């Protein structure tokens, strides 16, 4: 057998350290693509679903929202998606507040930011075009422009909320696992992509050091876009050199651990497509169709 000796005799002090196994680093969990939702899973229904179901159901709806016009349809789907999230996901108090209060505020603000970019002549035939909200010089910000901008903002928010259904209730690992198991994506591809996720923060850190190092050499003389581009080009060689070296080392380490040795690998977590996944997709789409029919064009 491999392991010599039973039990953690070597580092008793570590073994005794109280480790909160339930929620390691709760604060950073939202940012950690690997974080597990293990403990939350039984409580709300979204965690019990296959990640692919949570993706497959909202995607067609997102397409519909993207091509919709008007305010009613995206608004209805925002309410729908928010309801699914509130019922199906365990959200922190902060997240619930953001959902209930933040979304309306963001929608109203987005209406202005998108609205000012609207060409006034394109909405001139709307009845609301005669209502001017703000007037700066000979430029008028009309209610019609605002409403078009508002609708655009709502569409973006609706798509965002629909994608959150899968996004905040499953981890990167779960996605890869279900893609490998259900969609027959080769595991070598899936798990390599997952390993590559680890590179991102590393390269960010490395880039920071390189920039500091170049600053020390006095390359920060000169302002403006030309100097900035020249500086950035200077970061590429050292970053690439270390990236390639790192990738080679990771590849060797994975080879040494039998990655890719067999056509399949043992899965400790099964991610089957169950009846409840089909039911979820069907119900989600049925409700969506009803909403879309009722609100289309309004």
């Amino acid at each position, binding site marked *: *057998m*491999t*392991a*010599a*000796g*039973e039990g*953690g*005799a*070597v*580092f008793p002090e*570590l*073994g005794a350290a109280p*480790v909160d*196994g339930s929620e*390691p*680093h709760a604060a950073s969990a939202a940012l*950690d*693509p*690997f*974080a*597990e939702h293990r403990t939350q899973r039984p409580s709300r229904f979204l965690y019990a679903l296959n990640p692919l179901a949570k993706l497959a159901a909202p995607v067609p709806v997102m397409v519909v929202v993207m091509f919709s016009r008007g305010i009613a349809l995206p608004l209805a789907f925002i309410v729908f998606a928010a309801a699914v999230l509130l019922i199906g996901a365990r959200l922190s108090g902060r997240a619930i507040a953001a959902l209930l209060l933040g979304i309306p505020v963001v929608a109203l603000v987005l209406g202005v930011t998108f609205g000012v970019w609207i060409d006034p002549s394109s909405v001139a035939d709307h009845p609301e075009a005669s209502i001017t909200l703000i007037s700066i010089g000979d430029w008028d910000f009309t209610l019609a422009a605002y409403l078009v901008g508002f609708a655009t903002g709502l569409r973006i928010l609706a798509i965002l909320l629909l994608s959150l259904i899968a996004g905040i209730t499953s*981890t*990167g*690992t779960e996605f890869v696992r279900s893609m490998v198991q259900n969609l027959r994506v080769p595991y070598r591809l899936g*798990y390599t992509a*997952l*390993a590559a996720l*680890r590179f991102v*923060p590393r390269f960010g850190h490395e880039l920071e*050091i390189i920039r*500091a*190092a*170049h600053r*020390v*050499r*006095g390359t*920060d*003389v000169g302002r403006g876009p030309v100097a900035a581009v020249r500086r950035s080009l*200077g970061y590429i*060689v*050292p970053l690439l*050199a*270390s990236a390639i070296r*790192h990738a080679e*080392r*990771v590849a*060797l*380490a994975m*080879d*040494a*651990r*039998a*990655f890719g*040795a*067999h056509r*399949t*690998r*043992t*899965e*400790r977590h099964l991610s089957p497509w169950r009846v409840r996944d089909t039911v979820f997709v069907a119900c989600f789409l049925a409700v969506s169709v009803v909403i879309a029919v009722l609100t289309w064009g309004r």
Partner: protein
Amino acid sequence: MPPAPLLDLDRVSIRHEGAEVATPVDVSFEVARGEVVLILGPSGCGKSTLTLALDGLVPHAVPAALEGTVRVAGLDTSEHPVGVLSEHVAMVFQDPDAQIVTGTVLDEVCFAPENQLVEASEVLERAERALKLVGLWDRRAENPDTLSGGGRQRLAIACALAMAAPVLVLDEPTANLDPAGIDEVYAVLRELASVRDHAVVLVEHNLDAAVDLVDRVIVLDAGGRLVIDGPAREVLRERADELVALGVWLPVSTLAAMRLRDAGIVLDPLPLTPSELAEALDALPSLPAPLSASSPVRSTALSPRPTLSMGPGTGSTGAIAVIGETAIRARDLSVRRGGRRGPIVVEGVDLDVTAGDFLAIVGTNGAGKTSLLQALAGVIPAPRGTVDVLGVDPARCAARERARRIGFVFQNPEHQFIAPTVAEELAQGLHLQGVSEADAEPRVEAMLARFGLESLRGQHPFLLSGGQKRRLSVGTALIAGAPVLALDEPTFGQDRARASELLDMLRTLNDDGTTVLVVTHDLQLVADYASHIAVMDSGRLLGVGPTVEVLAGPLVEQAGLRHPPLARATRGLARHTAWHSVTRMSQLPVSSKASS
């Protein structure tokens, strides 16, 4: 039935693609279950390459030609893929970061057995056993990024153990770790070695940590040929001179004993550990008085042969710095990482560095050493008015003003290179000063000559060897005439030969009057080279003072560090109290012949 050897190498030569000669050459040996084998050799002899051949990465994954045969549990590695061989040989590499591929500690340990199609229940059993052995079972749900360097390397060992392979190969597993991490890893390896269930093949240059757990030593010479294969203690003791001549590094205690032997104090057999050295010294009825730390005799663990120093600096290091006056002054210096709301990493530091000092900043990982050095050199901004380097605030003055006062060398020299050739790399610093092309030329030539880079002037900096890169980075830091040089972990991840080359260069610069600041983990290097030590712990400066005083006091232990090997041996001497302050090789007595 007598079991076949787990590893069987027969006349193995490996030539990397593009290399002209093969290293290693013609190497044959066998390893049986229960053995702990240490492979030694000077840098460039092919030790690491040899370890890659033990599980088939050479020739399957690394572009290199393999001659001869490597048999793993009877399987010829050139005929079996790495995946099959991995059932018999597990590897642990030098860089803990480059071995982690999943998101949690538990997934990481399960990764290899899952690839090997082991039953899920057994995967978990193996993972639990391996994680408990290395003391990480309670942290199994965490992201490996949250572990310390030593913790991640213990995780890598657990991953190797979970493969249930009878051979464990470790290639410089502690080269990237601080002393606490090294101790953690060796505690695990000692436990493994004591059970004798595995064959362990270890490449390690830190012999002080490894010597008490290896049974057998295999030594390669600079050309990659096997020259010694024998029991560890006998080889290290009886053939110590031969090993030194080959360029192999011995434990500090052994080197110290050899120095004493040259001075007429014979310790037989040669001690290998600090406690053996202490015992042997205490067994002697009398010892000559040690030399004072300020004697002109020069000798270090890296180059033990005693020499006389050139004498103190000339006192003229350009117009800006004068030996004996304050070069760097920090008052109530605090530094936050990552902007105004970031964590405080350096807190309330008051520090004066006198021109001509060789100051080492020491502390455990996360003590704030690098941040302090970077703030002193203006790499990261310190609050206004807290740092003064020869009359300017380094974070707020123009780059050219700063470059004339202090040069900074990053841990990885590649990060600092900005020009396509070595000569232009050096000239860049002069262009920044507004020096004309004609005036710059001779100064670049002088710098190339000083650092032995004349023949490489047209080379791209990235194509230099590791040691050349390091020399070039020091050259670029000094070319504008900076009288102060700051280096962040200059010996991290390097073997002793390169560390020695670099530190001897720093000492020469220091002899010539350059003020040198280094951040380092290696306390024996600090003891041997630094004139002053600043000890950091949790962002605070615990104290600063002359090397001998700091090493004799309690600060080193307060900061969670261990004394360097020589100090550990001499501190506990019962008979020779005058020797308690001996911490550096240069304090050991020399024979009258050598000192004259």
